[in-house]
């Protein structure tokens, strides 16, 4: 028997790791992975809450999140490829033509 | 009241705008455009002559009213009407605009079409400000004057026109949003934008939170008006704007635009917040007096003709503000009269400055000297207007100045004393300027062959001269209509005074 809050805290930690990754990673792809990490964290919350309320729509929501994540991944990676083509780098610190 | 009376104000207001729209369609033949613009402005003038003709001078309330719902949801009405105060300001506008067209006949030769479109649009805005009785409508026109004026300065002006235009725009824009806030507050609390409704509501005391908000509302309106007037110390946009503006722009700027501020004070600050006006009068009067003396002294040392006139406007408008905040019949009548007189005479002064600029392309006084020799007619007109401006009796400047000073004196003796020194200063700077420009020998060879006034210029200048004289000799023609309006504006003040006395 695990308290639900444990799951929630785990999810919060994963989410925070994702945010941290976004902040500290330089490689665009890794940053994108951090976003996926955040989504995973959220998903865990959904499932946990679904248990809390005995409501399956939490799980359905996770399903939709995954679909969205998949779509995002497709588009995101395509964008990353396009960036790489024009800039020949994946370092986000160097993708800074647009500023001020 | 015939059928025309209810629509006449709309007609007068929008004839110039309609003319401007038509002007868009007129082919780019400069002469046609000029003639057309002149025709439109004369039409507006002719229409506006209907007003004094049918105006009931013994009535205090608004006349020629037109009140149609415009936007229902915020209760905005298309409400126009005039009383003795706005009547003459409307006429002043329609009087000056044809002269502006005439004086720009030659001096504007590039982008003529745009120029006259802007001029006519400006006229609509100015008239609208004076006839609007709905606070919203008023603000609407108030802001609407800003763009044409800024463009006139910025596009058709002289060297530092951009700086001047931006300064003008921002100064007045920033100030006027405070008024907007105040208007909105009033609407939020009274549910109406209608001037008389709001006024009745405030006087009835049924506006919640009024006691706490009144000082701020007063200030909101006042800031907007003070910048427009312009009152010391928010006057510095004026010299720049004037120096850079084309002649017609200066004429309307000094002649009418500045009056929007004093008109606003008279109508809104006094009309809506009598108690606050009374409380704030001391410092406002001090600012006005500082303006009178300061404006005159700074005018005295200006090396630039137009700047000098601009600073003189600051000085003159100081009289107006002082008169308004003296809360005496004489003061208010006088303030109104100075507004008109200043409109005519300073308008004429700017036209005259424009005449010489057109010939010499400079406003530097040091570039002139001895102009009376090559340009006798010009110098005569100039002298006449200078005399009108410095308040020579029997010319228009004197009447207002006398009334204002007497009113100020009655309000507080020392106000009168300090402000009256203004008559010395105005003589100093105007006559000194006149001497430097016109007297003595011609010091610059190129001035020897300057041509005197041409026909357009004469036609533009004569009316101002005649008007200056007429206003000085027969001011009752004007004061008759002004007095009832002033009395009704002052009514709450006498009550206030009585209450204070008790």
């Amino acid at each position: 028997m695990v308290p639900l809050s444990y799951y929630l805290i785990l999810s919060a930690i994963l989410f925070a790791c994702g945010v941290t990754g976004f902040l500290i990673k330089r490689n665009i792809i890794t940053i994108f992975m951090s976003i996926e990490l955040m989504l995973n964290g959220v998903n865990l919350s959904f499932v946990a809450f679904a248990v809390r309320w005995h409501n399956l729509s939490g799980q359905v929501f996770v399903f939709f999140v995954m679909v969205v994540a998949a779509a995002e991944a497709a588009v995101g990676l395509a964008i990353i490829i396009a960036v790489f083509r024009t800039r020949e780098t994946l370092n986000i610190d160097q993708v800074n033509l647009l500023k001020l | 009241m015939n059928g025309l009376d209810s629509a006449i104000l709309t007609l007068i207001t929008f004839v110039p705008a309609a003319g401007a729209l038509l002007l868009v369609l007129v082919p780019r033949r400069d002469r046609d455009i000029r003639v057309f613009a002149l025709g439109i402005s004369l039409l507006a003038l002719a229409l506006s002559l209907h007003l004094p003709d049918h105006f009931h001078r013994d009535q205090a309330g608004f006349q020629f009213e037109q009140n149609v719902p415009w936007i229902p949801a915020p209760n905005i009405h298309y409400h126009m009407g005039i009383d003795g105060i706005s009547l003459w300001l409307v006429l002043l506008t329609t009087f000056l605009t044809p002269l502006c067209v005439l004086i720009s006949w030659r001096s504007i030769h590039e982008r003529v079409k745009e120029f006259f479109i802007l001029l006519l649009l400006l006229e609509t805005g100015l008239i609208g400000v004076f006839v609007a009785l709905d606070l919203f409508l008023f603000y609407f026109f108030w802001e609407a004057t800003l763009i044409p004026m800024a463009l006139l300065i910025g596009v058709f002006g002289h060297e530092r026109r951009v700086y001047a235009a931006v300064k003008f725009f921002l100064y007045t824009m920033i100030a006027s949003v405070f008024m907007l806030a105040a208007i909105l507050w009033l609407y939020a609390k009274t549910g109406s934008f209608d001037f008389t409704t709001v006024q009745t509501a405030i006087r009835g005391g049924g506006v919640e939170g009024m006691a706490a908000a009144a000082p701020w509302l007063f200030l909101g309106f006042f800031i907007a008006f003070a910048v427009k007037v312009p009152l010391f110390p928010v006057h510095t946009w004026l010299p720049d704007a004037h120096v850079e503006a084309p002649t017609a722009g200066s004429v309307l700027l000094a002649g009418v635009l500045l009056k929007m501020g004093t008109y606003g004070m008279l109508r809104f600050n006094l009309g809506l917040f009598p108690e606050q006006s009374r409380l704030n009068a001391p410092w406002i009067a001090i600012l006005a007096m500082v303006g009178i003396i300061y404006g005159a002294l700074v005018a005295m040392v200006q090396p630039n003709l137009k700047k000098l006139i601009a600073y003189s406007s600051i000085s003159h408008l100081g009289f107006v503000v002082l008169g308004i905040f003296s809360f005496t019949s004489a003061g208010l009548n006088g303030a109104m009269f100075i507004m008109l007189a200043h409109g005519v005479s300073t308008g004429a002064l700017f036209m005259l400055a424009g005449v010489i600029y057109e010939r010499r392309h400079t406003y530097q006084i040091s570039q002139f000297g001895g102009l009376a020799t090559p340009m006798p007619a010009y110098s005569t007109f100039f002298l006449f207007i200078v005399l009108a401006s410095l308040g020579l009796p029997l010319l228009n400047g004197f009447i207002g100045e006398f009334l204002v000073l007497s009113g100020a004196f009655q309000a507080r003796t020392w106000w009168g004393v300090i402000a009256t020194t203004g008559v010395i200063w105005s003589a100093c700077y105007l006559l000194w300027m006149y001497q430097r420009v016109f007297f003595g020998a011609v010091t610059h060879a190129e001035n020897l062959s300057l041509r005197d006034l041409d026909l357009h210029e004469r036609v533009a200048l004569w009316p101002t001269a005649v008007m200056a004289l007429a206003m000085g000799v027969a001011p009752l023609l004007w004061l008759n209509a002004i007095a009832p309006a002033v009395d009704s504006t002052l009514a709450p003040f006498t009550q206030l005074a009585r209450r204070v006395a008790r």
Partner: protein
Amino acid sequence: MLHMILFLAFAVLSVAGAVNLLIQRHPISSALSLVVVMGSLAVEYLLLGAEFVAAVQVIVYAGAIMVLFVFVIMLLNAGEEERTHGSRVAWLLGIPGVLALTVIICWALVEHSMAGVAAIGALPGPPADIAELLFHEFLLPFEVTSILVLIAIMGAVVLAARPESVEQTKKES
């Protein structure tokens, strides 16, 4: 007890994977760490009874999406991360922000979340039930996802396709 042990084990594993993702400098290592996280989460889902979600997690996430990631990493031949110092703000504001955020959220969850307890398979989510929901109440979102996917395909095609004009210019030159 077993539940707790399993939960803790996979919780630690997933956090370790997440941290490893942050620590690793090579994208491939990060991607593999992420797979670990996802796998552990799938177990956690199972523990909560969400069988369908767990399955989809493994198939879609760990399977499809991560493969895509790895594929792109290989395609672009992404090397190790350079240690550039592009952003002070991220360190000065972001990291403290994240720490504060985590603390606040965790505190709120602990203090104020309901004291529910979950048994193993507390809320079974068999595919049939899920399907019932998807094709009934969530019919519209479900259908709409098709547009989402369509967009994604289009986007991928547009953006990842080799730019013709570049080729043209290469040919011309």
